Structure formats: C-alpha cells, structure tokens
C-alpha cells in the first residue's frame, strides 16, 4: 500500500535519509526502530508531505506522492501523529478533535461517530473536553494527539514515538490502543525507541541507523536478532 524507493532527504547540506526503501501493506502494523536522530521522524515527515525528498520515489495506493502537499495526503487517507504532538494549545480538547476531522468535515455523522470512538478509547479526553490542550499533562496531550490523528479516518496512521514521556502504565495503555486501532482495520506505521513494547504488537519492523535501513524483518526475527537486542532492547 505504501512504498518508499531509494528516498533521500536533506536538511541543507546534511543528508538525513540515505536511499531508504521500505514498504507497508494494507492492515499491517509496522514498527520503525532507531536511536535518537536516526531519521525516523524524517521518514514520517517525508511520507506525510512535510518534507520534500531530494530523491527517490514514494508510492501510496499505487500513486506517486513524493513532494505532494501535506493537506492533500490527509485527504488521501494518511494520518500523521507527529513528534512533539503539534496540538493547538489554545483550543480545547473537542475543538482539537474537530480540527482533526477537517477533511471529512462535511460528513457530520462520520465525525460524530469517530469522536465517539476516540472518547471510548480515551475516556479521560471526554472528561476534559472543555479544557484547553495546553493545560493537559504530557500523557493526556499524547492521547489527544493520537485521537486527533484518528479523526480524519486515515487508512494509514503514522505514529511518531507515541509513548515518549509517558509513565510506564500509560505506555502500556497506549500500546493497547494502537493494537486496537490496527485491529479495526487501520494500517499503522509506528516509530519507537521502546523496541520491546513495540515489537510485541508489530507484525514487521525496520531498524534505521544514521539515515540507513540496516535491518528488516518480522517481529520475531528482529526480536531474536542479537544486534537489535543489544542496541535497542538491552540485555
């Protein structure tokens, strides 16, 4: 469904991605592992149109999308829950969620349904509907960001380190939700440093180092790969 072919991305002179190739099939949950600064976010930003690739091809549902503006890709079914959350701090929780449904805004029923679903997944958000996003705790903000990304009813959901800064208990909860979203039919591409937890719910994974894909395989393979264990999972 999603395919990257020899994609390179530069920030000025610095080459953050070097000939990256990968693919995600419909319904899969694929995890992207890598250290700080390895290039995970860059891959996501490039897929969702925030960065333009210097070279290479990106295909989504058979169409080339490299360089397309982010706003079109959202309409096309790619949802991105970005690093740093990027919420609208002065809007309240329900307004933030509404903004998430921008591309399906005409379909009132669908919007209401999806919002219901988000509230079921994260009951705390329903409680805090009227609180401004800026006043939420880190964990709540992360839930809101995930919820907002779901609001556009994406076929592919890009989740950039959703567990960052969350207490372990919440982390577990978030991973459960991701799994549930995936089971509901949404394809998920997930970036994580918490390899252990991620691999548990993922079908497949890629390991990225310094802008290169260095290892790929299904979850068990990666889990049992010694180097991966050593670098990202620990003893």
């Amino acid at each position, binding site marked *: 469904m999603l395919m990257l072919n020899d994609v390179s991305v530069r920030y000025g002179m610095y080459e953050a991605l070097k000939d990256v190739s990968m693919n995600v099939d419909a319904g899969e949950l694929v995890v992207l592992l890598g250290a700080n600064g390895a290039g995970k976010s860059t891959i996501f930003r490039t897929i969702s149109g925030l960065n333009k690739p210097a070279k290479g091809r990106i295909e989504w549902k058979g169409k080339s999308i490299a360089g397309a*503006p982010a*706003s079109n890709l959202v309409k096309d079914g790619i949802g991105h829950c970005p690093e740093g959350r990027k919420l*609208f*701090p*002065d*809007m309240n929780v329900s*307004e933030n969620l*509404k903004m*998430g449904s921008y591309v399906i805004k005409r379909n009132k029923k669908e919007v209401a349904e999806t919002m219901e679903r988000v509230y079921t997944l994260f009951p705390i958000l329903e409680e805090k509907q009227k609180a401004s996003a800026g006043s939420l705790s880190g964990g709540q903000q992360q839930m809101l960001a995930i919820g*907002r990304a779901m609001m556009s009813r994406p076929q592919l959901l890009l989740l950039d380190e959703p567990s960052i800064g969350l207490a372990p208990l919440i982390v577990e909860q978030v991973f459960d939700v991701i799994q549930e979203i995936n089971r509901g039919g949404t394809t998920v591409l997930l970036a994580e440093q918490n390899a252990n937890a991620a691999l548990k719910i993922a079908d497949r994974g890629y390991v990225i180092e310094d802008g290169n894909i260095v290892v790929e395989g299904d979850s068990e393979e990666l889990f049992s790969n010694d180097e991966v264990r050593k670098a990202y999972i620990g003893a």
Partner: protein
Amino acid sequence: MDVLAQQLFNGLTIGSVYSLVALGLTLVYGILHVPNFAHGALYMVGGYATLMSMTLLGMPYFVAMLAAVLVVGGIGVLMERLVFNQLRDSPPIHDKIAAIGLLLFLETLIRVIWGADYRSMTTPFSENIVSLLGITVTSQRILIVVAAIIAMIVLQLFLKKTMVGASIIAMSQDREGAFLQGINANRVAMLTFFISGGLAAFAAAINAPINLVYPDMGHLVILKAFVIVIIGGMGSVPGAILGGYILGFSESLGATFISAEYSDIIAFVLLVIILTVKPQGLFAKGAH
C-alpha cells in the same frame, strides 16, 4: 449638549474604526507573522475603491462597499502570493521592508490615477441628523458603530464556529499541526489576507463619509493600529477589538480632559508606557 456623553459616543465611533483596521492587521500579524506596514495603504485603497465605485460606476453605497471589500481583499491576496509568501523564510526585517515598498507603490499609484486632492464621499446617511440623550449624531455615525460591531461579531462567529474560520486559528497556533489535519496552508494564508484587506476596505468605506478620501488617509490610522495590536496582543482578535475601543475612548476623553494638541500622541505614549512596564506586551503568553 452633554459633553461627556457626546465624547463617549465620539470615542465609540472612532474606536470602531480603529478596531476594524487593527483586526485586519492582527490577523496577518498573529497568523502569518507579517507586520504589514502596507495595511494602511489597503485602508486607503478601500476608501478610493468605494468612492470610485459610487462616482464612476454609479453603484449605490452598499454595493460600492461590497465591491471595495472584494477589490481590496483581492489586493491583499496578491500581496500574499507575490510578496509575503516569498519572504516566509527570510529574516524578520525583510517583510517589513517589502511592506514599506508596497505601501509606497500603492500610495503613488492612487496619486497618479486620481491625484493628491481630498475627496469627500456622500452617502444616504450623511446628512440625516439624530439627537438623543443629549448627543447629536448623523445616522452615518450610528452606521459606523453598528456596522463595525456587526462585522466583528460576524468575524468572531466565522472564526469560532466554522471549520474554515477554525483553520485560520489552528494555523496561528501550530502551523505544522494544521497542515497535518489537511489544512491547505496557501489557501488559509490567502484567505487571511483577503479578510484582512476586506476589513480595511470596510473600515474605510464606513468611515470615509465622515472624513475624506485622500492618499495619506491611512498613515496615522495604521500607526495606531500597530499600537492597538501590541496592546491587545499579536494575533488576538478580542485584543484588537478591545484595544481599538480603549484607544478610541482615551483619545476622545484625552482631548477633552488633557490636551487636544497632544491627543494624537496618546496612542504612542500609551504603548511606550505599556512596553516599558511589560516588555512582552499586555497579553503576552508565557515566555519562550
């Protein structure tokens, strides 16, 4: 005649105009971070567009007003496309300079086409005098106050209650976050400039009948609008409205109780005092 009541109404009138101009400025300032020094020129062009639609094309007042809003809104969009969009990543001084270039251009253009002389604009409301509660006003002045308040309410409803309006706010709060919801940045930028220009034209169209139309008419107004935007907080819609009225009232009361000569200084002194006490502005949101 009750001087105080009359002055309060005068403050309300002039405050309405200030608020409208400041609103347009604060939108582009807060959302696209463009301190548009050419905004006063848009106001001026709005005055001419209304007047010329009435005199040259024979349009009725309200139609001419609408035409002016569309024309000046369109100029705003052009400015965004051709100039400010190109300058998005350049250092902050540059868009100010470009705005000054646009200001010079627009002002000269008008002068070349229609000359530098003052023109007056008569509307069906100009001569209709109403006296109530010890104050005397023309219906044009009532129109200014009522129309401005309606325009502000409509704008606020548009921003708060419609998705398109919300997308403008969203972009002001987090640009990338907005992109990721499918909001087309270019469209929002153009829309913002359109509204901003339209508001300037609207302000000019309702105010010109009690004043005059001439190429310099925007100079002082824009300076004061900057003051208002800073007092009210950059990008804050309620702040601009409140600031506009604060200034309108302080001027009319200041001219009465302090000094008429220095009434134009009030705005600037107010700003200097505020920034002296609070360098980040009155309604600054936390430090960065």
